């Protein structure tokens, strides 16, 4: 906490939410009893705000697009190939990579809670945790993908993976046409979180086209 905090020169524009007050109550009691490390809270929050996010997964995808040997290892043993790039941690003990192709499209959900491959994608977005996504994508994946603007041709097979146990799934999206001259680093910037969950395809920005 910064030194100038004592001056109370920042104030909340709106009253704090009930939830924020409940969290303050918990924290102050547990700290008084020596049961809570606020340093550890800061460490964990910063990890997810700065280090662990979908950029990790995008680097995995861009490497697979540009290095066929890496792609082979990635599809054969996702956990080890992802660890080669330095990504591992909770909710990533066992990683399986699903390759989207012109004939097969994979999409991932967790209907029972919101299991998600943290080391490569960070924490899940709100829509992934929503009751609508959790309830619907196993029953009507094409309709759900359409809401994301993703229209799958009728002859594409849809595979929905309900990651209900401890294996975590990362979708390897198709490399879009027209990116042949792009470097691995440039490709990384095209890969979206949603494409690695499988609700979207990777698009080429108009400028590149």
């Amino acid at each position, binding site marked *: 906490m910064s030194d100038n905090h004592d001056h109370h020169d920042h104030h909340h524009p709106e009253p704090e939410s009930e939830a924020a*007050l409940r969290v303050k109550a918990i924290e102050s009691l547990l700290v008084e009893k*020596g049961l809570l490390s606020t340093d550890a809270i800061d460490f964990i*929050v910063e990890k997810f705000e700065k280090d662990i996010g979908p950029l990790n997964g995008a680097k995995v995808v861009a490497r697979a697009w540009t290095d066929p040997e890496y792609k082979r290892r990635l599809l054969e043993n996702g956990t080890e190939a992802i660890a080669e790039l330095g990504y591992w941690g909770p909710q990533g003990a*066992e990683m399986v990579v699903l390759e989207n192709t012109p004939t097969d499209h994979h999409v991932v959900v967790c209907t029972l809670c919101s299991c998600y491959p943290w080391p490569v994608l960070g924490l899940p977005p709100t829509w992934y945790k929503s009751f609508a996504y959790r*309830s619907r994508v196993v029953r009507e994946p*094409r309709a759900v993908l359409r809401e994301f603007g993703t229209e799958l041709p009728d002859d594409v097979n849809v595979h929905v993976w309900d990651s209900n146990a401890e294996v975590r799934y990362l979708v390897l999206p198709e490399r879009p046409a027209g990116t042949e001259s792009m470097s691995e680093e440039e490709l990384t910037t095209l890969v979206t979180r949603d494409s690695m969950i499988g609700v979207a395809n990777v698009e080429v920005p108009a400028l590149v086209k």
Partner: protein
Amino acid sequence: MDSVHDMGGMHGFGPVLHEENEPVFHEDWEGHVYAFGTAVKGPLFRNTDAGRYALEVLPPAEYLASTYYGRWLMRTERRIVELGYVTQQELDERLAYYREHSDAPVPRGSDAATMERAQSRYERRPRSLHRTDGTPPRFKAGDTVRTINNHPLTHTRLPRYARDKCGVIVRVNGIHDLADNIAHGLPPEPQANYSVRFDARELWGDDAEGEGCVYLDLWDCYLEPADRRNDAAD
């Protein structure tokens, strides 16, 4: 446990709302609640499945009325009371204080062992899921299986929509501890976990959206050979 958390296939939740450029945490308290599991001495739950079960037992109406981190907050409040770390009265009184003094600071605390646990959790390679002991797999890729029809009050990872359904084993994931047991501190009974493919029509009948399939990762004890029922009928 058959509660509202098991929502695969349910109707009525409306469209999926997508927020552009969403922050990791929308409010500071969400990150704090997320971190409690590791930042509280102990830690709060014996394992991830115990933490999941603590969400499943929340009253269904409250589960549905809350946000994701709101549910984590509820389970934290219940858990620290259950562990005897605080009493409900202490929590209520302290909340009343912060309602009156919302700008009052929150004290800081640090503990080297807790910090070290947090760091190693995020920086070291996680423990492998694979167990060298346990029951060998009964099935192999290509085998047809039927899921059991069970309704335990306890934790399970076999969702309702996939009970008593036929599927095909597509991969043997390895020998893993049984989530149903470790959530409750029971012997882990390590056994095979399989990826099983179910045709959409097997799960949803004529109301299926069309051709398609759903995969689940299922423990050996959730499965029986698909021909068992036919044998029994003979």
